[in-house]
């Protein structure tokens, strides 16, 4: 399989050139929230390994929230984040990117501090990389190419069925399977369909993955005597904090939420960018790092079949620390509206949501880290909307397809590639068509 990875370039914007940058980013869209896939600045669609990408100005409206802890608000630089999810490794992608979009990227990045005109684009982007602390991929190994090929396969089968309905409808599921196998084989021969075989998994990636799979629990095991010893103290402190941490959950100004809504629901999939300051102190930092390590480990080794716990609508998501772990940004690409996304999280995996985000300033009150919190639905939604940022440019390589569509198409293909299916398997397979 071809593993996926991510990239993120983070650079401070030159305050004198923010307006110019915003205009440049807007010029990449056909309309607000609708990217021009082949815009001259960064023609995303020409990058065949790219699943999702976005440019977002990390303008944090909640910077003063730290005052509730009697801390002086910091004056952080205003960052531009450019990030995406890709097939293969980051370096190869950045090189490709620099070939396809050198001029456009130079134009955009020159609005950032410290971008010298003659600089090596790839090197500069690498120097400004912001790696995630946790990353989720819906289906590791599924490449953009595979998505397109399988979508074409599904469409072609649906058309075949449409033309041949009376004959096919009379067939048993197993005979139907065989008949469609024949049709697909012919289409492949004629060069009308392409189903590329899975590429070999890079050995070094396999090794690193195995090491990560074993290493994290091993480290945890080694540290466990100490953790058990510290746990009572830790929990006591956490409970104290939970009892005193203030909630900052009020409804955002309608003009702000309208600004966000203008960019949403143009496609079946939406982007989500949220940021905020972490609660001060060692305990909260340790909790958020620990939980995100666990999330990252789980995402990499357990949740590799299209589900992040119970959630089936996320394509890619990641958490990134900023400014010496004082702040955090969360990026996600999910199907449906933001309202259904929030409901999904609250009702299906509220515990996980609480464990991560309750370490952010102002989150609705939790008990024992996982209880309560987002169960106060409206407070949570208000909190989240306050922290949501408008994403200026957002690209998706397969705009009409949801994660469920991708899964269906992959299941259709997998079934086709099994030489024969049992009675029940054939029935389940036929139900996908």
């Amino acid at each position, binding site marked *: 399989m071809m593993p996926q990875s991510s990239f993120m370039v983070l650079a401070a914007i030159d305050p004198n050139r923010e307006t110019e940058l915003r205009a440049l980013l807007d010029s990449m869209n056909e309309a607000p929230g609708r990217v021009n896939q082949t815009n001259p600045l960064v023609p995303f669609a020409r990058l065949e390994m790219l699943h999702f990408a976005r440019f977002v100005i990390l303008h944090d409206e909640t910077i003063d929230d730290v005052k509730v802890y009697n801390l002086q608000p910091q004056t952080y630089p205003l960052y531009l984040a450019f990030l995406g999810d890709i097939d293969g490794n980051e370096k190869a992608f950045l090189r490709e990117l620099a070939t396809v979009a050198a001029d456009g990227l130079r134009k955009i990045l020159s609005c950032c501090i410290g971008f010298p005109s003659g600089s090596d684009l790839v090197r500069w982007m690498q120097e400004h990389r912001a790696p995630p602390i946790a990353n989720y991929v819906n289906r590791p190994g599924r490449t953009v190419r595979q998505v397109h090929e399988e979508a074409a396969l599904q469409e072609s089968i649906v058309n075949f069925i449409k033309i041949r309905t009376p004959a096919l409808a009379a067939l048993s*599921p197993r005979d139907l399977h065989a008949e469609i196998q024949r049709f697909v084989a012919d289409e492949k021969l004629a060069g009308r369909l392409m189903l590329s075989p899975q590429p070999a998994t890079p050995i070094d990636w396999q090794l690193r993955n195995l090491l990560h799979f074993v290493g994290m629990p091993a480290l945890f095991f080694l540290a466990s005597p100490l953790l058990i010893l510290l746990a009572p103290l830790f929990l006591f402190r956490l409970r104290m904090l939970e009892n005193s941490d203030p909630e900052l959950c009020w409804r955002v100004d309608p003009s702000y939420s309208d600004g966000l809504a203008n960019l949403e629901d*143009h496609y079946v999939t939406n982007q989500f960018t949220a940021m905020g300051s972490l609660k001060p102190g060692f305990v909260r930092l340790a909790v958020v790092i620990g939980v995100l390590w666990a999330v990252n480990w789980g995402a990499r080794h357990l949740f590799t079949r299209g589900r992040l*716990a119970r959630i089936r609508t996320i394509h890619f998501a990641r958490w990134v620390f900023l400014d010496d772990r004082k702040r955090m940004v969360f990026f996600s690409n999910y199907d449906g509206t933001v309202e259904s996304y929030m409901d999904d999280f609250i009702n299906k995996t509220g515990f996980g949501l609480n464990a991560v985000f309750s370490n952010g300033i102002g989150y609705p009150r939790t008990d024992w880290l996982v209880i309560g919190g987002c169960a106060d639905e409206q407070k949570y939604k208000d909190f989240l909307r306050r922290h949501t940022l408008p994403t200026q440019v957002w690209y998706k390589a397969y705009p009409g397809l949801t994660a469920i569509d991708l899964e269906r198409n992959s299941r259709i293909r997998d079934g086709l590639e099994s030489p024969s299916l049992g009675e029940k398997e054939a029935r389940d397979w036929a139900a996908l068509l």
Partner: protein
Amino acid sequence: MTPNEVDYSDIQGLVRFGFGAMKEARYALLRVKDLPAARAWLRSAPITTAATMDPPPPTALQVAFTAAGLKALEVSPAAVAGFSPEYLAGMTEENRSRRLGDIGQSAPEEWEWGYGSDAMPHLIVMFFAEPGQLAPLLKNSKNSIWEEAFTEIRWLETENLDGIEPFGFADGISQPQIDWEQRRDPTRAEVDYSNLCSLGEFLLGYPNEYNKFTERPLLEPDEQSADLLGAVEAPEKKDLGRNGTYFVLRDLQQDVRAFWQFLNQQSEGDFATAEKLGASFVGRTRAGDPLARVQKSSIPGITPEEKQNQFTFEKDPGGSGCPFGAHIRRANPRNTDFPGRPAGFFARLVTRLGFGPRGFRDDLMSSVRFHRILRRGREYGPELRPEDAVALAPPNDPERGLHFICLNANISRQFEFLQNAWIVNTKFSGLTNESDPLLGTRAPLVGCPATAHFTIEAENHLRRRLSGLPQFVTVRGGAYFFLPSLRALRYFTA
């Protein structure tokens, strides 16, 4: 009286009753012309409450306000600001239209009322009456103060079709049962489908399905707010929302002829087959019998007599009984908090962690108990029997449709979610390229050019897929209203 006890005489009757015996109804969409007169008329209006009366009253009068209406009544801006954002922004806000599927022919710019400031009503006054009683009721109500107070934008007429909606199918069979006594504990995970819903889902000021109080205006006590009830969770505040709820109205014009002509053409002119196909669109036969099998054990919140409502889709995981995309399966998937009914703590934990059932369609939908609505709509236009609908339309064929009305405490989580994530969603329940067979707009989306399909799943062979469904329903108007308690109404009109 305990703080959260329900005072029925403070609640408008529509929340508790559909006024079914009052077969006649007309709704007036009004704008305030003269403020003192409007207040005076509203103060003297005999609003029917939810208290039971013996004998039941022969007529009823209800009133609800848009956000523009509250401003026209010069309700304090601080109080107005406490209502929900979707109510304040209104149904026709551009981004909202995209979510609700109000695009193309159904776009607000095309509406007959509800879009643009002149066509936006301030209030709706609803008159209900037993046969023969409507005319005298209207005559009494439309007095000289009325004439002075209001500009009539439009009268919405209704037609009594005896529980059959214009396409010819029994309607209004499934309604949530409100837990008026507030005995149910909504914080307990629901493993079996229940039709019993927390009072706070349909009435502000009471705990909702999250056991929380939905946001609403809570006021500082002063002379003006003295008569209002205190908030249950914050007794020092006056609760303007208490015993009131949001009232969603949409005028849905139904093209009955197009509907039956399409079915007929798909069935090659065989009417019985067309009826069957229509039933698969709806999920019920014309008589209202569900296509999913009725179960023997009774569902909480559904009486044993309501046989047509005694079912879930659990035993029909493949959609061969009732298609996944059928209207009633979209509007109420009858699911629970967990897929596959995990019994016991451990099984639930496994499911919670994401290791529950892994079938293609497992766990795709949100739990329905957070997305219920109370429907109170009425039909309009003369009856057109399906047998006659296949014929070509005569000149000046009258319009038919539904004044869709629903009540809910949280418009975005209930009505809007249902409309967006389930009704118009072209990706509902693992389907693709199709939206609700009755209500869908068939408008293309970016990357999904075709949305005019409908799939009928089959057990042991290939599904049937129809294509080229026309748009049968067009939105012609609509607005979000607030249906206040009687106390809140006095506050608005003081």
